[in-house]
């Protein structure tokens, strides 16, 4: 098992570190760590969750602006936005590859033997539409009679919420089962669609529908840590694309919005054409010598 898989497992375990719920503790964790947002997509109503979901927290902040202002509470989601922007400015989509529990789930499901399918590139912009509509505009603008918006992405789309919170809580709390209706079945259908798709395709949710990945991706070309391609060394053998968990054709575009900086291409390139830079400067230590560099 490589270093990234270990980091993913540790990050998933830390994000979901509350394991008292099966033994008579509270159904969900209620400690102070819940005021901290996890860097990956992880539902805060998951019985094991020890941190908050940044997308849920962002929607809630936007949905509560007007009633907050009426009682003198000036909350605009700056804490969550600042946190995500700081991580994005440092490393772009790197948290997707190294720290996101839902990303880990997708990579593990894709190991199941099955016919494998490519993801149509025309679907890639959908994640920005979901971010703009369901995470920002609808929660902020569609308000009830008390001035509150709804968490539209959680309510109508999020498959992570259905998997990590919906199904476990319905199993643990029979009182909730009477409330199950079309809304739940709609979300369950979305979850099942993605679970099947995850087996057939590489990280389809990240590539097509993840609003958190969409936010981080905006920083890929301007982050402190960036990947570089040496056109003089690249022979377009497509080894980078074959190992990429997001199916990015690195030989066509370095720092594509779907590049999650897993660094597998760095290892896979036999010609030393893939490198990285820190804020436009080469790394302090020279990259490992490649066969093509050897005298």
């Amino acid at each position, binding site marked *: 098992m490589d270093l990234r898989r270990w980091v993913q497992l540790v990050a998933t375990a830390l994000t979901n570190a509350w394991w008292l719920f099966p033994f008579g503790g509270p*159904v*969900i*964790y*209620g400690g102070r760590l*819940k*005021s*901290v*947002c996890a860097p990956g997509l992880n*539902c*805060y*109503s998951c019985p094991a*969750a020890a*941190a*908050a*979901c940044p997308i*849920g*927290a962002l929607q*809630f*902040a936007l949905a*509560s602006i007007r009633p907050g202002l009426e009682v003198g*509470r*000036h*909350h*605009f*989601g*700056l*804490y*969550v*936005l*600042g*946190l995500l*922007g*700081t991580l*994005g*400015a*440092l490393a772009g989509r790197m948290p997707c590859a190294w720290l996101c529990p839902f990303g880990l789930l997708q990579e593990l499901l894709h190991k199941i033997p099955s016919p494998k399918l490519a993801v149509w590139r025309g679907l890639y912009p959908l994640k920005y539409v979901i971010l703009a509509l369901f995470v920002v505009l609808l929660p902020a603008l569609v308000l009830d009679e008390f001035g509150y918006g709804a*968490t539209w992405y*959680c*309510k109508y789309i999020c498959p992570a*919420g*259905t998997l990590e*919170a*919906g199904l476990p*809580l*319905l199993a643990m709390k029979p009182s*909730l089962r009477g*409330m*199950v*209706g079309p*809304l*739940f079945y*709609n*979300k*369950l259908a979305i979850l099942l669609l993605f679970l099947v798709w995850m087996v057939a395709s590489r990280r389809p949710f990240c590539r097509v529908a993840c609003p958190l990945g969409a936010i981080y991706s905006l*920083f890929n070309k*301007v*982050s*402190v840590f960036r990947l570089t391609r040496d056109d003089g060394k690249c022979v377009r053998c497509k080894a980078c694309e074959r190992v990429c968990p997001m199916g990015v054709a690195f030989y066509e575009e370095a720092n594509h919005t779907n590049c999650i900086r897993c660094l597998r291409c760095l290892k896979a390139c036999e010609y030393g054409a893939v490198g990285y830079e820190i*804020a*436009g400067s080469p790394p302090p230590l020279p990259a490992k010598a490649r066969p093509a560099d050897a005298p």
Partner: protein
Amino acid sequence: MRRRLPFVLLCLFLALFVLGVTLGEPEAVFEKAVAICLSCIGVG
């Protein structure tokens, strides 16, 4: 500019983060995160 822009963005978002903390936003995140979110379950 290519070298400065990442640090400009980093400072900008760090400032937003600090401002959010100063305004007490982590407490609002906490209040939301410790209650079962019926929307997340798909029943609310």
